[in-house]
C-alpha cells in the first residue's frame, strides 16, 4: 500500500496558539479527559469553547483533538466513513493549519482518528486514539428530558426506563428497531451513547485496542472508553443484539463484510451499494 501520509505544507496561522485553543483551555480539557478515562462511560462536564464552526459540525470532537494533538501525530478525519466529504476535509485542513500536523486517509497510519458517525473497518491498534463527534451525549435524553433526572438515574444505575423503551420497540415492531446510536453498557456500570454510529459498528467498540474519546460541543461533555474495556450493546435473552447484514456486496470492491451505503444512481431508481469506509474500499480495489 502506498504511503499516503501528507506532510503539512500549509502556512501556520501565527495569530493563534498551537492547536487553536489556549493552554489554560487545553489543561481543562485534558483534566476532563483523564477523569473520563478513569470512569469509563461517565459524561464529564467541561467548559466547552466556541469554535470557528457551528455546533453540529464536530465542535466537541475538535476540542478533544486540539487537546491531544502534537507535531508528531498523523491525523485522519472521517465523516460517515469517508475522508473526502466537506466536514472531514475542513477539519483535516483546520488542524494542518493550526497544529502543523501530518494528515492521512489510511487508518493504519493515523495516530488520531476523528470521526463522525462511523468506526473504521480496519481494526484499530494500541496507541491509536479514536475521537467521536457527539451530538447528544445523554443516552436517556429522549426518555427523560431533565438533566437533573438523567444524572440521578446514572448515579443510581437505574436504567429500567431504557430497557422498557427497547421492550416497547419489540412489542411494536417485533424487534429492537434502533439501527444507529444504539445504547451500550460500558464496563458493566454506565449506559453510554456510542454517538450516531450504525449499530453495525457497536461490536468494534468492545475490547478495542485503541482509546475511544467522545466529545459533545453543544452539551459540553467528554466521555471515554479505555482500551480492552467491555462494551455491551443492550438486548434481551430472547432478542439478542444483531448487526445489519446485506444481500448485496460493494459495487466497487466486492466486500461482503463492510458497512454498505445505498445510493440511487439514476432517475429510474437504479440502486448501488458501496462501502461507507472509503479507505477500506480503496485498499481492496
Amino acid at each position, binding site marked *: 500500500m502506498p504511503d499516503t501520509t501528507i506532510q503539512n505544507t500549509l502556512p501556520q496561522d501565527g495569530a493563534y*496558539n*498551537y*492547536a487553536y485553543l489556549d*493552554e*489554560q483551555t*487545553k*489543561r*481543562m480539557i*485534558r*483534566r*476532563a*479527559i*483523564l*477523569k*473520563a*478515562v*478513569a*470512569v*469509563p462511560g*461517565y459524561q*464529564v*462536564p467541561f467548559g466547552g469553547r466556541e469554535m470557528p464552526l457551528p455546533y453540529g459540525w464536530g465542535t466537541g470532537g475538535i476540542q478533544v483533538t486540539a*487537546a*491531544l*494533538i*502534537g*507535531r*508528531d501525530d498523523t491525523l485522519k478525519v472521517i465523516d460517515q466513513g469517508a475522508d473526502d466529504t466537506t466536514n472531514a476535509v475542513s477539519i483535516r485542513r483546520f488542524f494542518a493549519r493550526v497544529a502543523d500536523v501530518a494528515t492521512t486517509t489510511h487508518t493504519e497510519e493515523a495516530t488520531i482518528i476523528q470521526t463522525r458517525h462511523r468506526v473504521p473497518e480496519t481494526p484499530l491498534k*494500541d*496507541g491509536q486514539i479514536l475521537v467521536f463527534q457527539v451530538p447528544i451525549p445523554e443516552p436517556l435524553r429522549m426518555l427523560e428530558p431533565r438533566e437533573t433526572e438523567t*444524572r*440521578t438515574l*446514572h*448515579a*443510581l444505575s437505574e436504567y429500567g426506563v431504557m430497557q422498557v423503551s427497547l421492550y416497547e420497540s419489540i412489542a411494536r415492531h417485533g424487534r429492537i428497531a434502533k439501527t444507529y446510536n444504539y445504547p451500550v453498557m460500558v*464496563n458493566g*456500570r*454506565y449506559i453510554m451513547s456510542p454517538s450516531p454510529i450504525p449499530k453495525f459498528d457497536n461490536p468494534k467498540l468492545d475490547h478495542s485496542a485503541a*482509546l475511544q474519546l467522545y466529545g459533545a460541543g453543544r452539551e459540553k461533555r467528554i466521555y471515554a*472508553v*479505555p*482500551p*480492552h*474495556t467491555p462494551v455491551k450493546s443492550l438486548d434481551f435473552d430472547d432478542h439478542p443484539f444483531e448487526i445489519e447484514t446485506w444481500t448485496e456486496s460493494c459495487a466497487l470492491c466486492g466486500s461482503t463484510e463492510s458497512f454498505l451505503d445505498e445510493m440511487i444512481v439514476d432517475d429510474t431508481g437504479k440502486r448501488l451499494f458501496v462501502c461507507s469506509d472509503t479507505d477500506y474500499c480503496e485498499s481492496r480495489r
Partner: protein
Amino acid sequence: MSTTVLAPGFTNAPHDAQRLFRGVLDAFSHPGRIVELRDAPAGPGTLSTAAIGFLLTFADRETPLWLEAGIDKQEVRDFLRFHAGAPIVQAREAATFGVIVAGGGEPFAGFAIGTDTYPDRAATLVIEVPALDGGQPAIWRGPGIDREVRVAIDGLGDGFWPAWSANHALFPCGVDLVFASGSRLIALPRSVAVEA
C-alpha cells in the same frame, strides 16, 4: 536576604505540555504500563521529574494542590506557584491534586472522592515511590488492561493495598493515582481492582 534561583519550567509550553499529556494519557489508558516522561523539567529536585511533569501539565490556578509535609518545602512551593500558578492548600478535601510520599498511613483519607452524580470531582494523587518495579507483585485487572497485568511497585506500606481496595469499592467515586519515580510513572485509575 537570600536569593534563590528558580528552577526552569517548560521551554516550549504548548509542545512540552502536549507530549507529557500524551504520556500520562497513555498511562491512564493502560494501567500498570510504565511510561517514561521524556523532557519533563527537572524542577527544584525535591520531587521526581515525573511528578513535576505531571503537575506542570495539569495544575493551574483552577486546581488547588496539597503537598505532604515532607515535600512541602519553600523551593517546591515557589516552583509550583510560579510555573503552574496553582494555589497550595492545607486541607486535603480542597485539593484537586495531592502529592504524597509512599509509605505513610491512610494515604487517601480526606481527599475528594467525587459524588454519585459528579464522580469526576475527585482528586488525583501523585505518589512518590522509590521504584516502579522490584516491589511486592500485585495483579491488576480492569478497564485498559488486557485480562491482567502484574505490577510490582516498591515502597508502598502494608496498609496500602487494603486502602486501595476500599477506594476501588467506591466506584464510580474514588481517587485516581499516579505513581512517580524518576522520570517514569504508572497510573492507577479508581476503576482498576488490585489483588495484592
